[in-house]
């Protein structure tokens, strides 16, 4: 009980240590390089996937949407876990910085989930003739989107920032516990109502020439996610710390400090 009480009620208060400021300064140097690497990978992956990868025997060229649908779906799920982990760190060690990262991760994850859903729906049209297909993977993705929206709505509902952070961190944690259960039960539900033809979940066996562009695109998306997450976190840090001295100096660099 002793250790648990000590860890749970750890009174460290990082706000004073200026860790958001340390994060801002540390990332200023190499952020552009990260962005350049991400864009480069994405460009290579796109041209490779769109132009040079061979056609798919059954689906023709419409399968090329896989090069954005699958990475976006990966990132949507990974993004939720990243958000929940940051929330957990914030809850346990009372780190304000990790709450800021969590707040930044929520909209990015939601947007990527939406992209995955949209591209999945558009891909469904040429393949099965309908935009919306109650396929297991797409249904779970839809529920993941609602989980994201729930976390964002809750974090915005509190007047005090800190309470909003903690509450949405707890909801994200409860969400992560439920995601595997939701995915499994939706898969079970889907196989129960299995109309014979729908088979999006098992992509056709992918041969190397199609697989390598997919890997580059996935890597590109991960780098892009890291880049955008840091960008959004830095933006939120400035918003939250606007009262402090270092932010004012940063923002008001060129303003002549007229002494009263």
């Amino acid at each position, binding site marked *: 009980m002793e250790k648990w*009480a000590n860890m749970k*009620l750890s*009174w460290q208060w990082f706000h004073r240590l200026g860790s958001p400021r340390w994060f801002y300064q540390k990332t200023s140097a190499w952020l552009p390089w990260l962005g350049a690497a991400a864009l480069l990978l994405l460009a290579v992956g796109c041209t490779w996937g769109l132009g040079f990868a061979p056609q798919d025997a059954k689906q023709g060229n419409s399968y090329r949407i896989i090069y954005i649908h699958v990475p976006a779906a990966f990132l949507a799920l990974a993004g939720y876990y990243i958000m929940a982990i940051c929330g957990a760190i914030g809850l346990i060690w009372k780190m304000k910085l990790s709450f800021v990262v969590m707040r930044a991760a929520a909209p990015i994850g939601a947007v990527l989930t939406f992209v995955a859903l949209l591209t999945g729906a558009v891909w469904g049209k040429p393949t099965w003739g309908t935009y919306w297909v109650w396929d297991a993977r797409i249904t779970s993705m839809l529920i993941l989107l609602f989980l994201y929206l729930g976390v964002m709505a809750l974090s915005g509902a509190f007047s005090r*920032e800190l309470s909003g952070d903690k509450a949405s961190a707890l909801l994200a944690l409860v969400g992560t516990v439920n995601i595997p259960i939701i995915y499994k039960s939706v898969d079970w539900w889907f196989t129960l109502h299995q109309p014979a033809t729908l088979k999006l979940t098992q992509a056709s066996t992918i041969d190397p020439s199609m697989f390598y562009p997919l890997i580059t695109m996935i890597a590109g998306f991960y780098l892009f996610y890291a880049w955008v997450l840091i960008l959004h976190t830095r933006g939120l840090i400035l918003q939250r710390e606007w*009262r402090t001295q270092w932010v*004012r100096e940063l923002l008001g660099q060129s303003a002549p400090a*007229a002494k*009263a």
Partner: protein
Amino acid sequence: MASELSKSPVPDAQSVREQSLAVSGLACERDGRLLFEGLEFTLAPGAAVQVEGANGAGKSTLIRTLIGSASDFTGTIAWQGLAFPRGLAAMRASLLYIGHYAGVRRGLTPLENLAWYGAGQDDAMRALELVGLYGFEDVLCQQLSAGQNRRVALARLYLPDSPPLWILDEPLAALDVTGVAGLETQMNCHLRRGGSVLLTSHQPVNIAPLQRVNLADFSPRMAVEEELHRAV
């Protein structure tokens, strides 16, 4: 009706003397605004502390920090020499807290409320009589007025076996003259029995020995707003 108050074993002097709440270098912040810093006081058994300050000076935030409801503070709060958070569990075990909200369930009667706080039937009846709620023991609290509900909460102070540390947020608010007098008598009696009281109040309270702590004396040396002006 000589009520027998000393049902429980008499604690030895050592454990009573040690039950003190020591606050040093305490700084609290709310919504990014530093309320006070460097707060210093010690609440020894048998003594009382009255926390004063303008509205919004941070009295309620201080109280919530002392009972462990708010956790973003720097400085140390120690109960029986044990700093938070380890000391918090021990402190809560010997705490009687009456906050801004009375803590009285509106769906229950005063008797049931006091029973829920662990009081026997006759102790509760006597306590309710002392706070002037004779005859209202079985009326649902939702039918009682706000003042009466507050008195049901204050009746907890009249129960025997009361915890040694009392932390009361604005106890004298919405009390009439006789209510205030009765409460002050009971607090003096509690202090004489070796208990300690920490309360916030705007009006003077004649209980002794009383240490008055004014939050204005501990306002942050350089308020954040001034920092803003200095940068301009």
